[in-house]
């Protein structure tokens, strides 16, 4: 497991060796100036992608399953999505009611 992160005061000359691995990885993997090297490794290679996914990409599905979708950084989007879901359910229910009513009409 990744060790808990320690916050450092500006007095420190540079981040101690105990800097959080996730913080280091997100910087050394694809930050800095990218220049074409002789030994090409595509950072989207599947294994690396797996690592990065595991580390950095918050799966909305996973979060939703865990019941923590309320923090999403795009409230406008996610609220709309939530409202859309309700509206969709609503319209499905209306359709069903209509169908049932039609059925009853026909049965008479």
């Amino acid at each position: 497991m990744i060790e808990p992160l320690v916050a450092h005061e500006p007095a420190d000359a540079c981040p101690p060796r105990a800097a959080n691995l996730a913080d280091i990885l997100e910087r050394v993997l694809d930050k800095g100036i990218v220049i074409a090297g002789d030994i090409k490794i595509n950072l989207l290679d599947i294994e690396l992608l797996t690592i990065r996914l595991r580390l950095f990409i918050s799966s909305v599905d996973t979060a939703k399953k865990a019941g923590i979708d309320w923090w999403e950084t795009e409230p406008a989007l996610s609220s709309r999505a939530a409202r859309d879901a309700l509206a969709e359910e609503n319209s499905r229910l209306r359709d069903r009611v209509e169908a049932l009513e039609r059925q009853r009409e026909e049965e008479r």
Partner: protein
Amino acid sequence: MTGAHSVRVFAVCHAAGAAPLAGLRGHAGGGAVRRLRAGALAAVVQAVPAAEFTPEALRGHLSDRASLERFARAHHEVVAAVAAAGPAVPVPLTTLYADEDRARQAITEAAPRFLAALKRVAGRDEWGVKVFATAPAGGGAEAAGGPPPAGTGRSGRAYLDLLRERQRARETRRDTVHAEVERIDAALRACAADARRLRTHGPDLTGAQHPQVLNAAYLVDRSRSAELAATVAALRGGTERGAPLRIELTGPWAPYSFAEEDEQRPAERAGGGGGRP
């Protein structure tokens, strides 16, 4: 065994820069970490066993967590030491050349970008700020869509009302957190020369209990580091608007996130905030 060697590049600085490189280990099993002149620039490089840096070997190393950590920390240690001694621009972990001439050529070709970046970061450090939402008590449970509490009656309308209520409560919490995050970001930008939004780390890394709601980097003049720290301290004391948040400050870092012009990578558009104010 003296096999073929490749040249691993860590960072680029001004040729006149004089970062003390003695004692830096770089890649275990590589040669001494040293300076390679390329016109007005100097690259901090190391000869490494070519066999360990073929694309296949490298993929293997970077796919193994322990090995990835060794590579990443070795890179970071050298970059941090060079950046602590003067303006320096990091290059990514997998920047490798067949020999010194090829490395020199690549850096010379990219010289304008390096020089612009060195100018941008001179006298400045990168600081990382991460904000976590510490979920309100019971917030997770009601958001999880558990069974309706007893006594809500059995009518469909009551049930739908309950769902709507929960949804509204969730949205309110989300909006409060979002507003707090924007306020924190604005306060920190005021101390910074530049700012970037990074990807927020997922729950695998942070734990589902404390989702990360902001992961940002700020480029701050060294003369203003204390001001940044004071601002963070004030923000910690001032999350009085009811959003329980934890703010973490890390740094100083080498200016990893500010090496490239802000070209709005999709990953940095979280919350639509990236870029300049």
